[in-house]
């Protein structure tokens, strides 16, 4: 191996302090050498969150890796349900997905999802986008459920518990947990600290909190301390695995 990963993955011998003898230091290292290594244990039936708002923030390399990895019967939690033939659409086309939990499956060229849905070959749980974000955060924050005004009196709240609070009607919503959260970040370090790029941040931070195993593909790996501690958006405690993805795949 060569390139930036080597710095993070090839050694646990960190050298010596000035004036002392060298010793072995075991260090926290969440950087994995490949997408395949980062996804090797995704099991059939897993719930997998996938970041992104359309193509912005979509972890393209991880989604491709998930297709290659082969896990089936997945529940996907994402804002959209894919478009064209790449990304989430390709995962759907490969027949790996049992259910999608999302806010906006209908897009200009979401024909793969559309066809599966019309054929009754995929289950859809449609969630208002704010409820989606808040339910994901709830899972990551230890909240057992919460009341929101959003959705009250609509088809999307049908069958849900309602409650009047201070004269307004609220609906009870529950956390959405995930076995894996796959997200895309801009910069990462070996502790898993992340920054994002512009509006590609979107669902990344909340999904990182909710995933039992959060895998981040990053454009750039930096040494520890290479991210300003004031500007860390996702602290490393929420991230279990980091993979550098050199190529910027383009998916709209």
């Amino acid at each position, binding site marked *: 191996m060569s390139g930036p990963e080597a710095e993070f993955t090839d050694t646990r011998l960190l050298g010596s302090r000035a004036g002392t003898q060298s010793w072995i230091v075991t260090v926290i290292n969440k950087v994995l050498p490949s997408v395949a290594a980062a996804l090797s244990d995704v099991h059939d039936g897993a719930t997998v969150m996938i970041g992104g708002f359309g*193509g*912005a923030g979509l972890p393209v390399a991880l989604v491709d890796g998930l297709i290659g990895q082969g896990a089936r019967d997945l529940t996907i939690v994402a*804002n959209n349900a894919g478009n064209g033939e790449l990304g989430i659409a390709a995962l759907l086309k490969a027949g790996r997905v049992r259910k999608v939990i999302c806010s906006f499956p209908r897009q200009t060229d979401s024909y793969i999802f559309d066809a599966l849905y019309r054929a009754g070959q995929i289950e859809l749980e449609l969630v208002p986008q704010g409820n989606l*974000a808040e339910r994901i955060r709830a899972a990551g924050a230890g909240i057992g459920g919460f009341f929101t*005004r959003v959705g009250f009196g609509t088809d999307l709240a049908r069958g849900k518990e309602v409650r009047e609070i201070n004269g307004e009607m609220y609906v009870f919503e529950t956390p959405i947990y995930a076995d894996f959260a796959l997200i895309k970040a801009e910069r990462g370090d070996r502790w898993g600290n992340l920054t994002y790029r512009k509006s590609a*941040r979107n669902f990344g931070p909340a999904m990182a909190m909710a995933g039992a195993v959060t895998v981040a593909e990053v454009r750039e790996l930096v040494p520890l301390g290479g991210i300003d501690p004031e500007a860390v958006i996702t602290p490393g405690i929420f991230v279990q695995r980091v993979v550098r993805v050199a190529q910027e795949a383009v998916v709209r």
Partner: protein
Amino acid sequence: MTRVAESTAWRKRTRDEIAARLAEDIFEGAYVNLGIGMPTLVANHVPTGREIVLQSENGLLGMGPPPAPGEEDLALVNAGKQPVTLLPGGAYFDSADSFAMMRAGHLDIAVLGAFQVSESGDLANWHTGRPGDIPAVGGAMDLAVGAKHTWVMMEHFTHDGACKLVSRCDYPLTGLRCVNRVYTDLAVLDVTVGGFVLRDAVGGLDAESLSQLSGVAIAPPHR
């Protein structure tokens, strides 16, 4: 539903004219979310020198105009997934924070398109309800009930002549009693506890004629 002939005596406002009429009413310093579709036009008509702040559900405050060709950044898009820019003073944040500001009344105005608005302020804009149509809601329900003011911008009639102002929505609802004002190609109406109240209309129309055309009760402007 009341149906009307397409030919009329009054001149309808164009989409840009509706946008301009609505933009007039956005007050200095307002935090505004413009929904996908027709509402997006409003950004082009904010009166010169009036500073407002546009929010986009995907995590932007201080959204600016589209970039120059070649300057597009796939990581900087609006709710319609079109490339945009960020103004000085803008900020990025995540979806949970974005919807927190949308859902708790921090936004002053949400401008949304609609299939139907009822006289009690119910909004239908997310799903036709037709079998086979793919439902998609996005941030519509959050905006409808979350913003301080929910303004709808839409054509007064559907393509086949049905009035979109109704006594009761028959499309699936987005939110109950959430619309405060409606801007159409014919008129601007407040939605009050007593139903629709006209603010202004295109030349030749008054509350009575508009009410007759629309098939719903529309009260004359409060003086």
